């Protein structure tokens, strides 16, 4: 479970990146955070992973304050970034092995890796290939395999479909649905309204550091999510003028 309580981040240049975010993502829930560039989506993820310190409020992972006990909180979270380059000179096996050890899974066998790779649709013959020869979609799948191997109850994804072709993006969404079925809380920042409509349980829209709207699946299926999102974006453009 992920929780943000009045979570605020103001940078040294006084720019308010996140303004009192209150949010809770339950077990087995997929939450999509939408918003324009610079709206504060990645800042939220950075705060949950304790990459930056909040200037107010707190972020909790499974009830653990990430600022107070960052190492303990990281036991319960996996992360998939926008562009998982990984270590190009290493094979998929070496990458998986390294991150598995860091994730507290030091004794996995080849069969274990194969099983997790199959979960994300990676072929076994990719196991001994150098990652630098992989397409972005394949690298993203290796990134997801790393997250799955860690077996943390919460998964944070930062625009994982950016740059992926539609097929690869659809495969990724299916993997997230499978993970949700296993009871994982999934928090994903994206611009991809189409994917949000397909699989999200709830959707939030961020604007200038504020969470301006949250809709459940039932609500946004009734309303037109695209229109709502575009209306917010339009407002921003007009305000910007």
């Amino acid at each position, binding site marked *: 479970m992920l929780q943000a309580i009045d979570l605020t981040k103001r940078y040294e240049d006084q720019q308010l990146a996140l303004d009192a975010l209150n949010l809770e993502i339950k077990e087995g829930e997929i939450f999509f955070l939408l918003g324009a560039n610079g709206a504060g989506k990645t800042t939220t993820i950075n705060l949950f992973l304790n990459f930056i310190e909040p200037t107010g409020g707190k972020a909790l992972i499974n009830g653990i304050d990430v600022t107070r006990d960052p190492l303990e909180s990281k036991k319960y979270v996996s992360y998939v970034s926008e562009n998982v380059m990984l270590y*190009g*000179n290493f094979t998929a096996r070496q990458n998986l092995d390294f991150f598995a050890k860091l994730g*507290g899974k030091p004794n996995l066998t080849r069969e274990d890796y194969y099983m997790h790779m199959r979960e994300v649709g990676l072929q076994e013959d990719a196991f001994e290939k150098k990652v630098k020869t992989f397409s972005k979609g394949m690298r993203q799948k290796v990134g997801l395999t790393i997250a799955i191997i860690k077996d943390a109850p919460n998964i944070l994804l930062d625009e994982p479909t950016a740059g992926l072709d539609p097929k690869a993006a659809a495969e990724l969404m299916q993997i997230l649905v499978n993970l949700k079925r296993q009871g994982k809380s999934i928090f994903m920042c994206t611009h991809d309204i189409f994917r949000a409509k397909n699989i999200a349980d709830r959707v939030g829209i961020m604007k200038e550091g504020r969470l301006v709207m949250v809709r459940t699946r039932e609500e946004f299926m009734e309303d037109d999510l695209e229109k709502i999102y575009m209306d917010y974006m339009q407002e921003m453009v007009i305000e910007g003028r």
Partner: protein
Amino acid sequence: MIWHIVKKDFLENFTSARFVAGFLICMFLVPYTVFTGTKGYESRIDLYQRDVKKSEEIFSKAQVYAQIQPVVNIPPSPLTIFCKGISDQSGSQVSLANSEIPTFAGGVATIHENQFLNRFVSLDFINILAIVLSLIGVFLSYDIFSREKENGTLKLLLSNRVTRSDFFLGKVGGILMTFVPLLLVCYMLVFLILWISPSVSLTGDDYIRIALLILFSLLYLAFFVFLGSYISSKSRTSSTSLIIGLFIWCFLLFLLPATMTYLGRNLAKSENYSMVKLNMGDVEGEFWKKFEEINKQTEKETGTVNHNCMMCADWNYGSVMMLFTPLEHMEFQRRMHENIGPVVLDYATKKWHLQEAYLNQLYHQQKMIKYLSCLSPSEILKYVAASLCRSDMENHVDFMDQARKYREIFFNYYKEHKMYASFDYFTPQKESEIPRTQEEAVRQSEDWVRNAKPESTFDFSSIGFVNTANLPRFSYKEKSIVSGLSDQLWILTAMVTACIFLIWITYRSFIKYDIR
């Protein structure tokens, strides 16, 4: 956690193109420099053995004690194969005369057959290490943090139970680990070449020095790794970091030492040696006046005039070898030597005060340049390596001091054993064989010329040689490792402190590093 990161980084660096390129450069340059260094050492050993033989002949073929002006040689150290230091320029031989305390060493200084090649920089193993290791150090560390950030692996890594401190230590440890096999392979290659070279034999002390050299090379390398890491922790992108890293590398290795040498020369100026020689000439002028006084006084005392040697060879400062000369004149010479011998030594000491003042200026200048140029870590490596390889200035100064000390002992032996007052000092003839009259002297001389072959009229070896068995002999004592390193203590401490400081500020900087 740290160990996993160390292993990952070791493997990543070890298989990287830049490391492989650096490794191949080392594999080419190291054998080349060691091979040429070994050849140079073999030439020096050959010359040294010939010089020692000649120096020995000065004792074994001396017919009078006045003839003996010992020549001492510094044995070349096999470790100069690693680092030539000043051994190629400082001279390896010192002639010791009673009339002058030596300022500089002479002998064959450089091994180049073509002396015009002295203009060019001569690379040795340590020079290669100084350039290549530091360059590989910078190349492997300039993007130590920024590469992980740019690849997105930094966030992925830190999303696990890895603290920044663990990550930092793992990364730095990984790079340092990468260099261990490189250094070991380089030194093993050196050992292999030395092993197949018959003229090179290393002692236990040499092996300890080489081990210390390996350790210090690692410290030197660590400096550049920490420097690269610091730049990486302060730069936003890898390309910025690379440009800054290369600029600082060039500055530290080339610009700084050259500038500091120039600055040091101007800050600590030394007198012109021609001026010192002029002043020494004044002292010598005084000596010759004194000589005249003693000559006149001796003439008065003996009632003899200082002339009429039938067959004599002149060296310097009144030292002559006389033969077939009447006892009256021989006695005059004996008294003259007895009186002038200690005076010659006194005037040598007077001249030494001028030489010593000049030498102190040179030492001061050298020290000034040394400490200024030690702002560059490559210079520190070279100084410490030269000290370990017995090719630094301190070793040379120690040799010169030993030579001067030996000179003092040698000529004091003459004084204490009243050798200046003996006939053996200047004539190979026994006292009983010295002609009593002018006629007898002429007869002896004519007999000698008649019996001698024309080409060996002046070869008096058949008369016999003086006994030199009891004369003090020079034995060179090498500086111990501890003594050598204590000379470099200041710069060693500076290097260690710089490394600790760099790693500390890099750590502080990385803790605040923006990983977004």
